[in-house]
């Protein structure tokens, strides 16, 4: 009953809120507009935008040594989460059956375990830095903590749900996923989509100036 609810009405409601919420956020951004740049460009802005959208995924030069901890933990979390989300066997089955209608090859078990460890360790390290580092304490909002904890709960219940045959644990995981999806558009988690805009805008401006940003 509980599983049917979270995988049925709640799931569909969550998907609608997730998609509509993201659409609203993009509208909120794009509706504000950007004035055309009237300065004669040195090089192409579009190429600059595309370059920066990709290049900011790699570590930039010029950080002081204080950034190493965050950079390492950041890569651990994001790479681990990406593998978990798209290459864990149960997720692929869910995507095939409930969303796309097709699936793909799952990651080997050892890759899955490694990714899970990286994601957990990365997320915990990032959150510890958030509560311990003076800079992070200064700039963190309630949203940062809420997003971190919600993500942790989703990952944790996901591990629990691996115990096949326990519907309650699977329902718990789906419930936390639904809560995260409803929260997502109204939080800083939106960076997962809006990074394309922010990197693109800056890359275009810098590209027009002839600077590889």
């Amino acid at each position, binding site marked *: 009953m509980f599983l049917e609810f979270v995988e049925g009405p709640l799931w569909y409601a969550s998907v609608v809120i997730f998609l509509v919420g993201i659409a609203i956020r993009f509208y909120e951004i794009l509706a*504000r507009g950007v004035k055309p740049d009237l300065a004669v460009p*040195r090089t192409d802005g579009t190429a600059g935008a595309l370059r920066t959208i990709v290049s900011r995924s790699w570590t930039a030069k010029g950080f002081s040594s204080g950034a190493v901890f965050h*950079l390492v933990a950041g890569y651990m979390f994001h790479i681990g989460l990406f593998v978990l989300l798209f290459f864990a066997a149960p997720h692929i089955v869910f995507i095939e059956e409930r969303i796309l209608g097709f699936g793909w090859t799952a990651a080997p078990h050892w890759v899955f375990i490694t990714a899970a460890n990286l994601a957990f360790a990365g997320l915990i390290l990032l959150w510890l830095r958030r509560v311990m580092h003076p800079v992070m304490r200064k700039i963190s909002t309630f949203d940062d903590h809420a997003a971190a904890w919600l993500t942790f709960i989703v990952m944790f219940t996901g591990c629990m749900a691996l115990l096949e045959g326990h519907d309650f644990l699977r329902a718990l995981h789906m419930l936390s996923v639904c809560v995260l999806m409803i929260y997502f*558009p109204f939080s*800083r988690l939106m960076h997962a989509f809006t990074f394309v805009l*922010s*990197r693109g805008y800056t890359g275009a401006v810098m590209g027009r100036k002839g600077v590889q940003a």
Partner: protein
Amino acid sequence: MAKVVTEHDYARGVEVLRNQIDAKIASYLSSCVGCGLCAEACLFYTETGDARYTPIYKVEPMRRLWHREQTVAGKLAKAFGFGRDLTEEDFAEWQEMTYDSCTLCGRCSMVCPVGNDIAYMIRKQREAFSAAGYSPPGLQGASQRALEIGSPMGVTWKALSAQIGHVERATGLTIPVDVQGADYMTLFSSMEIMNFPEYIEAVARIFDAAGVSWTVSSKAFEATNSGIQIGSSEIARELVSRVVDAAEGLGCKHVISPECGHAYTAIRWDGPNLIGRPYEFEVVHILELLDQLRQQGRLETEGFDERNLTFHDPCQIVRRGGVEEPPRNLLNMVAPNFKEMPDHGKMNWCCGGGGGLSANEEAHDLRTTVFKVKKRQLEATGVETMITACANCRIVMEEALEHYEMPVVIEGVTELLAAHLKPKAGKTETAATE
């Protein structure tokens, strides 16, 4: 005429801040995950350890306003009585973070994982703070002088005319003034006119040798733009318009931006957007022009400067301006022992005096403190001569070098090249008068 606001009016500031948030800024604020990495790229944080100087924290008033008024979550929170509006106290508190601890160098903008151009955001926040009268008195004074006299340092045409007279007597050349139809109209910064007139002499000698058709305008010779620094588009527009009117009035094909960082940003990149149309002329930085002359074989040098020397990349010319290769091409003509600093080029560390800090007396001690990063760069390079291409960087660094008792000499690129200029055969005459 544009006005400098000196009376506090935070409500006006809130109104202006609201209008500064375009799609770019909305995307930046939506993407920021509060990772704090920008702090590790900012000399004000790395040299003080003060978390308030984290670049993204400097635009906290902008973030709060955006979240409260322009997001669904913020509007809901406001409707249920959570959070609070910006107050006068916020403006008073953030004036230091908006002006004293940011040179608009844009180093943070180069490292942000989500690509946020934080320097752009701070520049826009300055629009609100200057409109609300929460700007440093030093910058207010500089802007007022720029509007009334034509120069932030109060340099008049008569003062430049006197310097031109000195240069003409020293070189035997004639500096062309108000020459209709000259190819290039040259701008100077007040700092060059008063502190480094050797730049004017160097330009005159090089242009004479290269046969460049050029002129100085008696109506608009000042390159600097206090409006950009204090963050007033209204002031910036008026100052840019003077240059545009003079150049288009003389029918010049090009305007030369001098060895001054923010002047280049003002006239090259911001100017057309400020006046709302493209120019009828092309803006070229002096380093770009000299490099073009080198490529055309019109800039010939002889002999070498054997000193071990390095180059300080001015932020607005290199990182925010894209003129990175020309100074290196030029230095390679005469400086065989040129050595790069760590983090050179587009990731160079700021001198600490950009973005109006050199005119901001309240930031003097902080400016000196953050110079420690430049000190380390110089010590790692082990040179006693530093070449740069910004008179503002130069004066700020010369003062700091004195403070730290470092035996480093600073010179300009143009000046260094002029010292090695191959003598021109035959009669010397400016192309503009030919």
